[in-house]
């Protein structure tokens, strides 16, 4: 949204020469990536190549070995603790498996960050929670339900609603459509598009889903060989010479999708 981020700003997330590993195993090696304000960036890569690891490293949940990460133009390493807390208000995360708090209802889950960060009356908080529930396309009675009573698709939507609780500027989505049926996934894609337009979000979306990439994403980045091997629009990806990107975007499924 123009009134959120200065128009001339550079990347909202900038990752440079990132190295991440566990023990002997190096997962990401010299990875660089820019996410521009207001875009939906789709992040693809084979299973177990480190897409979630990259997301978690940007979020500060995994220690990096080398490299720099800056968000909103500020380097995360040199940022004072207080700034860091402010930053956490400005991003929302939807984890791969939802990570809803199992002992709280959906509405209470959404109110957790609100209680932590905002000064609002309880009535307004439940009103906003109900609003977020509706915005992500859940029925209003879903607010009263516990995570164990939700279907897979509902869990994803509830997790998205929680990620949006504080009207963040950046949203990280880790495989938002995996495990959804094609219709549900398509609905989810258009939901993300709509929300991105209404709320002026920047979206970093890890996905396997060619449909999502084609219909929801502005740009795509592909992870292979421990780094980002190609970035660009769908057309640019199809033209990429990298073998993995080639086989992913020129496979039969992909071609069918692109023709259709």
């Amino acid at each position, binding site marked *: 949204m123009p009134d959120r981020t200065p128009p001339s700003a550079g990347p909202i997330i900038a990752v440079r020469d990132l190295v991440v590993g566990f023990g002997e195993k190096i997962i990401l090696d010299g990875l660089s990536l820019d996410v521009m304000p207001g875009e939906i960036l789709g992040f693809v890569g084979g299973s177990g190549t480190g897409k979630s690891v990259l997301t978690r490293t940007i979020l500060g949940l995994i220690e990096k070995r080398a490299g720099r990460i800056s968000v909103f133009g500020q380097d995360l390493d040199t940022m004072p603790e207080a700034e860091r807390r402010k930053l956490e208000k400005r991003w929302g995360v939807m984890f791969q498996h939802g990570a809803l708090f199992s002992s709280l209802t959906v509405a209470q889950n959404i109110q957790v960050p609100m209680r932590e960060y905002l*000064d*609002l009356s309880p009535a307004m908080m439940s009103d906003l929670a109900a609003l977020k529930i509706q915005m992500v396309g859940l029925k209003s009675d879903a607010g009263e339900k516990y995570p164990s009573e939700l279907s897979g698709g509902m869990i994803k939507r509830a997790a998205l609603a929680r990620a949006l609780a504080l*009207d963040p500027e950046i949203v990280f989505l880790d495989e938002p459509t995996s495990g959804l049926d094609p219709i549900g996934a398509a609905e989810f894609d258009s939901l993300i598009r709509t929300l991105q*337009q209404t709320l002026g979000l920047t979206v970093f979306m890890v996905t396997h889903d060619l449909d999502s990439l084609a219909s929801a994403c502005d740009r795509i980045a592909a992870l292979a060989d421990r780094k980002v091997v190609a970035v660009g629009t769908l057309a640019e990806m199809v033209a990429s010479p990298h073998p993995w990107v080639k086989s992913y975007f020129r496979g039969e499924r992909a071609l069918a999708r692109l023709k259709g």
Partner: protein
Amino acid sequence: MPQTIASPGFEIRRDGERAVIALAGEWTLDHGRRLERLAEQMPISLGEVRRAVLDIGEIQRLDTLGARVIDQLSHELGSEGVRVEVTHARREHATLLDAVRTRTAVVDRPPRSRLIDMLADIGRTVVLAWHDLVRGVSFIGEVVVAIGRALIRPQRFRWASLINQLEQIAFRGAPIIILITFLVGCIVAQQGIFQLRRFGATAFVVDLVGIITLRELALLLCAIMIAGRSGSAFTAEIGSMKMREEIDALRVMGLNPVDVLVVPRILALIIAMPILTFLGSMAGLFGAGLTAWLYGGIAPETFVSRLQSVITYKHFSVGLIKAPFMAIVIGAIACIEGLEVKGSAESLGQQVTASVVKAIFMVIVVDGLFAMFFASIRF
């Protein structure tokens, strides 16, 4: 961000029956309650008007809270018969205003009487206690059947799991149980000597400690320790498997969770309890002997020979006979509670607590029943 934060505000320009309300500043979550208060003030300072124009052109930033407050405001004014119009909305603000325009009634639950709630609670507790008992008995039946199956076809029995559990329960549990029974043996002996000394009957401390340790103390301490140590672990393990649908996965593979998870655990407990009780008895007697020697001046030879004359095989066996029954009680309660876990982390916590509390309670009840039984057969 470098920009200065402009706090939200409004200005009213009156024009006959029409009022123009110019909103300005940042209408965002950062201003929380201030926004809510602004929205409360506005209709009051507006007074009597027919038409209100909300001019939101000067709003610098707007998010869902701001949009929602504006939406509620226009709804409220509208319901008082004022014609409301929103003007000069930027495109993105207009989209946001559209998105929040829903009337989700937050339902309030009807108030209920405290007394009725309390009575209902009591009733529920009684019914649940009865269900607990019935379920406990039927579960033990199920376990016995499963153990029978294992005996008929030992090649299908999960030996690895049994050995693993035995290591956890008996091997790793032994040090702490030995330490505790040793200390309690010391304390009982010290108290016994201290009190009996006044009657000049210090030597009877051997009878006291010997009988109480072998018949009751070692077993009870052991059972309480095992309920806290292994019972809680059983409930947490089975419960977290239940939470993640692993139990359902076993069922659909045609594996009976009782065979796979419960029987090895309970059998391990049945084997481990007598061993631990025996170790505990010895440690308790050792502690008592040490205290008697150092504190009461009873020489070890005297202690041992008196012990030999007082303690019969009967006393020794009472503790060991009770041990497997305690094992079944603790194991069954722990596994039942584990299988009762619902989807949430909170319910796991509740069930683990319930498992330990119920197990310790039932151990003491069963011990009381045994005391009556042995007394009536003069054993």
